[in-house]
């Protein structure tokens, strides 16, 4: 089979794809920040002495981990406005679905990290008079975050790729724009190849940056 690759229609539509790329990066950044910080909050709630907070955290984690993000996005976009007097944009629905899902996953990553810190670290910090919050902030979290950085990187990559799910509510991101270009020019092979390549080109430098961060944090090792 001889297929003649033709990238000219894609170059002609570079603006549409650029819009898509901007949409993807924008959604990614919002969901990364919201998802990973909310995840830390949920992880801390899960360790709380107060039963209510603990159960809320567990309920949240199990609900959002055990339902598909795609369903969550559709639910926030189509179902939520039927229950409550809110209008929700595609961007908003995608943020809710992806961020909450990522918060549930990353909460468990943070929990694993915090639990992996030896009790002696808590004791030594408390023994010089630190409060529980100070121990967490100064002693436990810096060590725990370092240990879970590879797992959090995985989460970040996943968030980046989950942004494509926002195309289901017609949010303007790379895949959505790709679909548009492909349907107008009948060139799915070129378009989806380029979309895949664009994701790789955007993500890989970010991943390299986290490796550099890991190396920097490893300077206290023997």
């Amino acid at each position: 089979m001889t297929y003649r690759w033709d990238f000219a229609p894609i170059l002609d539509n570079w603006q549409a794809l650029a819009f898509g790329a901007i949409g993807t990066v924008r959604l990614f950044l919002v969901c990364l920040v919201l998802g990973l910080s909310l995840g830390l909050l949920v992880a801390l709630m899960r360790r709380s002495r107060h039963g209510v907070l603990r159960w809320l955290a567990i309920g949240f984690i199990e609900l959002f981990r055990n339902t598909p993000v795609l369903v969550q996005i559709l639910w926030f976009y189509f179902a939520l406005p039927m229950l409550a007097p809110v209008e929700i944009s595609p961007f908003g629905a995608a943020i809710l679905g992806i961020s909450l899902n990522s918060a549930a996953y990353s909460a468990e990553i943070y929990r694993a990290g915090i639990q992996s810190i030896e009790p002696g670290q808590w004791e030594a910090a408390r023994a010089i008079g630190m409060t529980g919050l100070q121990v967490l902030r100064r002693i436990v979290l810096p060590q725990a975050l370092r240990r879970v950085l590879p797992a959090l990187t995985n989460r970040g990559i996943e968030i980046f790729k989950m942004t494509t799910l926002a195309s289901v509510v017609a949010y303007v991101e790379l895949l959505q724009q790709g679909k548009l270009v492909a349907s107008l020019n009948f060139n799915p092979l070129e378009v989806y190849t380029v979309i895949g390549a664009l994701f790789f080109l955007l993500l890989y430098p970010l991943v390299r940056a986290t490796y550099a961060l890991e190396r920097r944090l490893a300077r206290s090792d023997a």
Partner: protein
Amino acid sequence: MTAPLLRIEGLGKSFGDRAVFSGVDLEVARGDRIAIIGASGSGKSTLLRCINVLERADQGRVVLGGEPVGEEVRRGDRTETRYSEAALVRLRQRVGMVFQQFNLFPHMTVLGNVMEGLVTVKRMGRDAAARQALAELARVGLADKAEAYPAHLSGGQKQRVAIARALAMEPEVLLFDEPTSALDPALVGEVLDTIQALAGEGRTMLLVTHEIGFAYHMATRVLFLAEGGIYEQGTPDEVLKNPRRPLTQAFIAGHRRFSF
């Protein structure tokens, strides 16, 4: 007569069904150096950890400088002690602790470890804290390691940093929980020298140890823990050289078996 610096009244602690000790009374005056010895599981470490409330006693109370630690509340037919975070923070600034496993903060330099309490707890400026931390490190002979990370130190050096970290808070009482038990025998000496130097400054300390010889030279008083309490106590000569009760005699004899 002045009030004792630290008083323990009727202290009791159980883990589940197993009572570790009960009804322990102890008075510690300023400048006392108390060695606590006994077999494994006799509650030596637990007693020490109840003093700075890393472990919560089930009965009794700890009185520091005339003030009871924690607040006693009646609940039905029994009293329980509640500790506010503020009370624990105050207590732990006055009572320092050195652990068997050092427990240095691995993500901070040696200087950072010693400064941490000064900056975070005492709210001291970083420059002043660094100066004081360096002075404490000089005291344990490790000023040249200030910029090193704990992972690059020997066990003995780690323990001396841990001692400097506790000293930096200027505690009135120092608790040592088997400070040399995790060390290579060749490194025990440097840590004992450091503790000996602190004893020479007239500091008040309680030391849980298996180093009977060191206890003999350093302590003003020795407690032997057995049968769920203080089984025998007295001067080092009384308890270690001429123990009167059978379990103490057997314990000391066991430790002497291979001396030469």
